[in-house]
C-alpha cells in the first residue's frame, strides 16, 4: 500500500506541482489550502507525511504542527515545513515544534526528493 501524504499550502500552483511529483513517485496525495482544512484532513485520515506551509489564512502552519504534535494519534507523522520564512529563528521554531525537515521557498525538485528520502528511508531528522 502506497504511503499517504498531505500537502498544505495556500498557493495553488505549489500544491499542483508537488502533487504531480509525488504522484509520479507513487505516493497517494491529499491537499489542503489553509490550516483549518489541514487539521480537518488530518482528523479524517491517517497520513504518513505532512508537508506544511507556515503563512496561511485562518490557521497558520505553526498552529497546524502544534496541534498535530500534541495529538497522540498524529504525533508520529513526520512533518516537512515548506515556507518562505527563511530566518534561522523560524527554522529553529519549526524544529522545536517537532518538524522533521525544514525547506525554504523557492526550492527545487532535488531538495524535495532529499527530504522524502530522509523521511521515508531513514526516518530520522537530520538534527537527531
Amino acid at each position, binding site marked *: 500500500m502506497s504511503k499517504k501524504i498531505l500537502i498544505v499550502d495556500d498557493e495553488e500552483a505549489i500544491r499542483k506541482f508537488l502533487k504531480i511529483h509525488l504522484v509520479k513517485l507513487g505516493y497517494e496525495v491529499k491537499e489542503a489550502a489553509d490550516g483549518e482544512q489541514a487539521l480537518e484532513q488530518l482528523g479524517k485520515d491517517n497520513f504518513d507525511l505532512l508537508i506544511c506551509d507556515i503563512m496561511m489564512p485562518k*490557521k*497558520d502552519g505553526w498552529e497546524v504542527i502544534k496541534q498535530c504534535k500534541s495529538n497522540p494519534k498524529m504525533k508520529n507523522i513526520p512533518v516537512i515545513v515548506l515556507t518562505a520564512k527563511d530566518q534561522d529563528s523560524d527554522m529553529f521554531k519549526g524544529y522545536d515544534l517537532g518538524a522533521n525537515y525544514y525547506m525554504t521557498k523557492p526550492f527545487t525538485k532535488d531538495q524535495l526528493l532529499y527530504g522524502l528520502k530522509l523521511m521515508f528511508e531513514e526516518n530520522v531528522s537530520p538534527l537527531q
Partner: protein
Amino acid sequence: MEAQDKKRVILTLRWTAIIVTSYLILFGRGRITDLHLSHILIATYLLSNVLLSFLPKKWFSTSKLFYPLVLFDTGIISFGMYLSEKMATDFYLVFFLIIIFASTSRNFKLLMVIGGITALVYGFLLHSWGLLISKEGVSYILRIPFIFIMTAFYGYIVQTLTREKHEELTISEDKYRGLFENANEGIIILRNPQGQIADVNREVERASGYTKRELLQKQFLDLLAPPEIEKTRDYFEEVAEKGEARADYLSLKKKDGTFMEVDLSMKRIDLGDEHFYQAIIRDLTKQRKLEKNIRESKRNLEAIFDGIRDRLSIQAPDYQILRVNRAVAENHKTSFQELIGRKCYEAYFQRTLPCEKCPVSLTIETKHPGSSIMKLVEDNTTLQVFSYPILDEKGGLSSVIEYIKDITEEQQLQEQLIQSEKLAGIGILASGVAHEINNPLTGIIGMAEISLEEEDSSKNKEYLNDILNCAQRIGEIVKGLKSYSRVAKKEDLNSVDLNEVLEESLKMVRLAVKTASVEVVKEFQPVQKIEANTGEIQQVFTNLITNAYQAMGGRGGKLILSTRSLKNSVEVKVTDKGMGIPQKYLCQIFDPFFTTKNPGEGTGLGLNIVYRIVTKYEGTIDVESKEQIGTTFTIKFPTRRAEA
C-alpha cells in the same frame, strides 16, 4: 524764670521807676507851669502799672508785651523829664546812653556796674558844676538814683527778652538734635571739609562701625578709602569754592577694614563768623546690592535674548520694532539701529502692509499668543512665527514679542525622515512581500521543472499558463511597492479613485500581516475621484490598515473599510475592533515620533505621515477610540479640487 516771678519783678521795677520819675517831676519845679499835666502824667503811669498787674501771667512770658512796654515807659519818662525843670541836654544824653547800654548788653551784672559808674560820673559832673549844692540841689540829686534805676529797669527787660529767645533756641535745637540723630542718612558736622569731625549722628556710627567718641577724634579724610583721597581733591575744592558739592559712589573705610559705597553731599553752613560743613552720607550698600541684582538679571536676560539663535523682536502694537536680538540683525545683515523704529513687515519682508498670516496681527487684535507658518518664495525658506503679548499693569497690550524660527532645514529633515520611514515601512513589508513573491516564484520554478519533464504538449501548455499567472502576480506586487516608496511631485497628481486605492492598500497590508482571523468588511459607495497622488493616498490607507491589524494583534477581529460621498467631500472610514487608544494619547498620536510601541518596533512617524498627506490635500482626519472596543479613523478629502 517762672512767669509769676517775671511779672512780679517787672511790676516792682516799674513801681520803682514810677516813684523815681514822680519825684523827679514833682521836685524839679523848674519850668513847671502846668501842675495838672504833671499830675495826669504821674496818674497815667501809676494806672498803667495797676492795669499791668491785672494782665495774665503768661503774657509776661512773651516778648510781644515788652516792646510796647519799653516804648510806653520810655515815652512817659522822657516826657516826665521834660516836665521837670532844668531840662538839660546832658540829662537826656545820659538817659539815652543808659538805654543803649541796656539794649546792647548781654551781661546784666556788667550792665549794673556800668549803670553805677555812669551814675557816679554824672553825679561827680553835677557836683563839679556846683549844681548839687544850689537851691534846686534836690532835683539834681534825684537824677543819680534815677539813672541807676532806669539802668536796672531797661537792663532787666532786655535781659528777659534775650533769655526768652535763647530758650526758644534751646527748644528748637532739641528738635533738630532729634532729627539729626534719627536721620536715615549719616550726617557728619565738620569744622572744615577734610578736617576734624565735630559731630556725627547715629547712622554714621552704625554704618561706619565706629563709636561717636572714636569718630570725634578722627579727620574726615581718615574715613575715606585710600584710593579715594586723590580722587576727592577736586571735590573738596568745589566745596570750599561754592559752599557745596556732591560726590557719588565714594568708598568709605569702615572700622572692620571693609569698604562701603556712599553718596556724599557736603554743604557749608555759616553761623556768623563761623563756618561748619555738613556732610550727608547715604549708604549705598543695600542699593548697590539691589542694583547689582537688577543689572545682573538684565544682563542675563539680554544674554538669553541675544543668545537665542532664532529671531526675536519686541514690537509696539503698531508693528514698530522696539528691540531685536542678534539673530535678527545677523539675518538681515544689518545693525540693530537700522531695524529699530521701523515697521516689522517693512524691515523684514519689504512690504507696505502687514503679512496676511502674521500672528502679531492676531495678538494685537486679541491679546492672545499666535503662531503661523510662512513660506517665503523669494529665498525658499519656511518660517514658523510665534507671537506673545506683553500686557501692562492694566491688562492693556503694551508690546508684542515676535519669535521667528527658520524651520526650512527642519522641514527638509522631516521630509528625509518621512522618506526613510517609508523605506522602513518597506522593510517591514519586505518579509511579507518576500513570502508573497516567493510563493508564486516557487510555483514558477516547480511548474517549470515539471514542464521540462513533461512530454505531453497539452499538459505543458497548462503548466505554462500557471507559470504566467504566478509571474503576473509577482509583477503586481512589485508595482504596488513602487508606488509606496515614491515621493509625490506636483506633476504626479492624478485622479484617484479612493475605493480602488483602498482595495489595493488592503491587499498590500494583508501580504505583510497575514493574521488568521480578521474579518474584513468593505462598505464602499461610489465616490467622486479626488485630485491627488495615488502613491501618497495608498500610503495613508496602508498605514491606517496596518495600524488596525496591529491593534487587533493576534486576537483577530473585524476591520471595516467604508467610503461615502458627502456634499463637498469624500469620506473614508477605517474602523477596527482592536485594543483602542488610551484617551491620554489621543491628542498626541499624530505628533511625529510619538509611539507607544517598543523601540525598534515603530518609529512613531506613521500617523504623522498620514496627517501630513491628508492635510496636504486640504483634507481632515479625525480619530475616535475606546479602549478594548476599537478605533475609527475618519478622513475627509475635499472634492472641489477635482472639479476645478
